[in-house]
């Protein structure tokens, strides 16, 4: 069944020396990062660190001013953003950004817009319904009328409809009740068990370190630390700043 989700293992995502910002404002100061096929990688850091900016730069929603950005052999800065889903890169944006006035199923349909995805719409929709049975119950409901957790599931489901090999997730747990946060992370775990590569941005450091293999700590646009999840979770400085530890 996981064949419905993705065709092959995918490629390495590699950022090197990425600088990006908005107008005169610079948000990223030379960020380097690497995600191997099949890996789950986290990016953690405080408000305004540049986590969202990083994902937006990968997706081409903003263009880096300097640095290289490659997926496999491809220079992503030369690819128009709407071509990325076709290349196997899907992005679940910050605040979900569902189409609230469309039904759940219509949201999934927009997620399957590319030619290749249309051909496999039914197959992938069934897979999404399997992952999120709640979506099947609510398929004809307007997305905007659902709870925050359900909307997050729908947003992830919408991204899966393009059949990605790598999923970029921007704070999927933001604004959700603790129990629902658990469910979302459980889902991320399942998605990666199916072989998907995951790059996840989170402020919920304790939780995300339990799901990912490696993580980067981003502070004011710079990578302040990186390492395997267990190492980071044990690092005294990180415990002090992010895990409320001692």
């Amino acid at each position, binding site marked *: 069944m996981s064949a419905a989700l993705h065709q092959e293992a995918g490629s390495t995502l590699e950022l090197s020396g990425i600088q990006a910002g908005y107008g005169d404002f610079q948000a990223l100061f030379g960020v380097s990062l690497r995600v191997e096929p099949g890996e789950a990688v986290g990016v953690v850091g405080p408000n305004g660190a540049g986590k969202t900016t990083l994902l937006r730069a990968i997706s081409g*929603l903003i263009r880096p001013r300097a640095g290289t950005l490659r997926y496999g052999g491809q220079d992503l800065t030369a690819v128009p953003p709407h*071509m990325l889903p076709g290349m196997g890169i899907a*992005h679940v944006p910050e605040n979900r*950004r569902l189409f609230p006035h469309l039904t759940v199923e219509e949201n999934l349909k*927009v997620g*399957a*817009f590319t030619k290749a995805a249309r051909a496999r719409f039914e197959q992938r929709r069934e897979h999404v319904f399997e992952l999120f049975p709640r979506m099947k119950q609510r398929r004809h409901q307007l997305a905007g009328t659902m709870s925050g957790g359900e909307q997050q599931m729908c947003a992830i489901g919408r991204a899966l409809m393009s059949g990605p090999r790598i999923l970029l997730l921007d704070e999927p747990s933001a604004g959700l009740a603790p129990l629902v946060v658990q469910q979302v992370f459980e889902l991320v775990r399942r998605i990666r068990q199916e072989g998907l590569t995951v790059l996840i941005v989170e402020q919920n450091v304790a939780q995300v370190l339990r799901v990912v293999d490696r993580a980067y700590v981003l502070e004011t646009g710079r990578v302040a630390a990186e390492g395997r999840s267990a190492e980071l979770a044990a690092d005294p400085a990180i415990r002090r700043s992010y895990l409320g530890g001692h």
Partner: protein
Amino acid sequence: MDPFFLEALVNGILLGGVFALPALGLNLVFGVVDVVWLCYAELVMVGMYAVWFLHTQAGWPLWLAFAACLPVVALLGLLLHLLVVRPLLNSPPINQVLATGGVLFVLQGAATLVFSTEFRSLGVDMPPMEVGEVFVSGTKLAAFVAALTGAGILWAFLKFTYVGTAIRAIARDREVMPLMGVDPQRIYLIASAVGGALAGLAACLLVVQLDVHPFVGLSFGPITFMICVMGGLGNMLGGFLAAFLMGLIISVGGFWGTTEFSYVVAFAFFILVMFLRPKGLFAR
């Protein structure tokens, strides 16, 4: 009920059907591209000339002239987007309005140059039909049925196709669309062509009821804009319903007074709505 009053009601609904098409087209383009086509009624005017020319001058059968009118005006919508709107997509709205307003005068001027200001009539009419105790113009009834058919096809397109669903989505959130694999520029082009085709269909329905001249757009353009604003600019269903409301007001107003009086009533109603519900009748 007074059969003449009943007739005014029926005519109002028929008129509403014809107003509905340009209202749908204008709202579609505005909702997707976020630019008001101030020259929309002039696209309809060009379509009316196309039908008149092909039928009376080139001798094409009427149905063929109608069938050609839709793609011709759709192409015009496409060109309008490519040549005028697209270069101004990131400009202030006032520049966009001035540019499409400029096209309005260009089209009026071009029509005057090519066809002169003479009123041109298609010279076709269908016999009136008697429904119960009410006489209904066959032409108006046919135009109404065609308008509803066009609106129904548009609805199915927006509801069931991938592109139609993307059109409804982009009207709400433009920035996120590339993440769905959607190229907004392509959706803008499609919406502009569909908006043009709707103007083309409206032209077919109007040319059998009105003589065409370079300024014929003035007789339904302002009403169309009022309808769109009343229904909530960009709100297709709101515009559709407002079209029937406006049709009824004009028709019933004309029953109690003159046609000119009925337009005064319609305009007064519009101003009243703008005072009470500035975001449109159907805004939440």
